[in-house]
């Protein structure tokens, strides 16, 4: 664990290029999404115990804090997905690595609007905006 923290520290204090931050974020989001997926499968399993139990679980998710986490999750999946695509493209089509910076901005160009839209739909109801 110690070296996880120290390597993260090295990562943050080093003036790397976008690829470097892309990697840190990719790893963090991948980790987050993976943990969530596990949770999600477990909570879905509750469906097997009938409607009441499941509603109980769904209720948990409607809490504002959970909604915020969910927004973060949405962002994570979308970022991870499109940055993953960026990595895959560079892996299999070498010339694209020369435009990796452009690709990186492109990823944000897709990720930000998508996340914002999804965030709106997710947050608006609980915060009484809609």
């Amino acid at each position: 664990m110690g070296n996880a923290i120290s390597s993260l520290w090295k990562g943050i204090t080093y003036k790397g290029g976008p690829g470097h931050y892309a990697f840190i974020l990719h790893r963090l989001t991948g980790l987050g999404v993976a943990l969530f997926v596990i949770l999600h499968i477990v909570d879905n399993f509750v469906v097997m115990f009938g409607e009441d139990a499941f509603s109980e679980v769904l209720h948990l998710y409607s809490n504002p804090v959970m909604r915020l986490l969910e927004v973060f999750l949405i962002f994570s999946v979308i970022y991870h997905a499109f940055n993953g695509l960026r990595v895959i493209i560079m892996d299999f089509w070498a010339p694209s690595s020369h435009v990796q910076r452009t690709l990186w901005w492109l990823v944000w160009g897709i990720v930000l609007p998508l996340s914002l839209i999804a965030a709106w739909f997710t947050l608006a109801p609980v915060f009484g905006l809609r």
Partner: protein
Amino acid sequence: MEIINKEYGLPKEKFKGGFETWAWFFMRISGVVLLFIAVIHLLWMHIGIQVENITYDVVRDRWIGPWGPFWKTYDIALLTFALMHGFNGLRWITDDYIKKPGWNAFVKALLLVIFLIVIGMGAYTVISFNG
């Protein structure tokens, strides 16, 4: 004038990648698959249906309704790809940060156990749910 390799020497020998090669390759393939199914799933749930509209009934309609078989297949695919992709990712991360051989082996064994349990739970839910 251009002279190719073969005129001057035997061609290079053939070789095969092993497990790690496949792990890497699988991450790309599953990534592309997930890009469609996971992102669609996510956006459908959050923008299409929207979370506060999700109820037990919605879930039941989805799995038992006329589109049931499609959604069940879809969800099984999502489940397997996401878990295999995700757990391989977790394995990579474990290898990077957990350096003591004993701990490393322990955490990876634990990951495998969790993987089996979770994929079992997920598959059981999707397949045997009948309302």
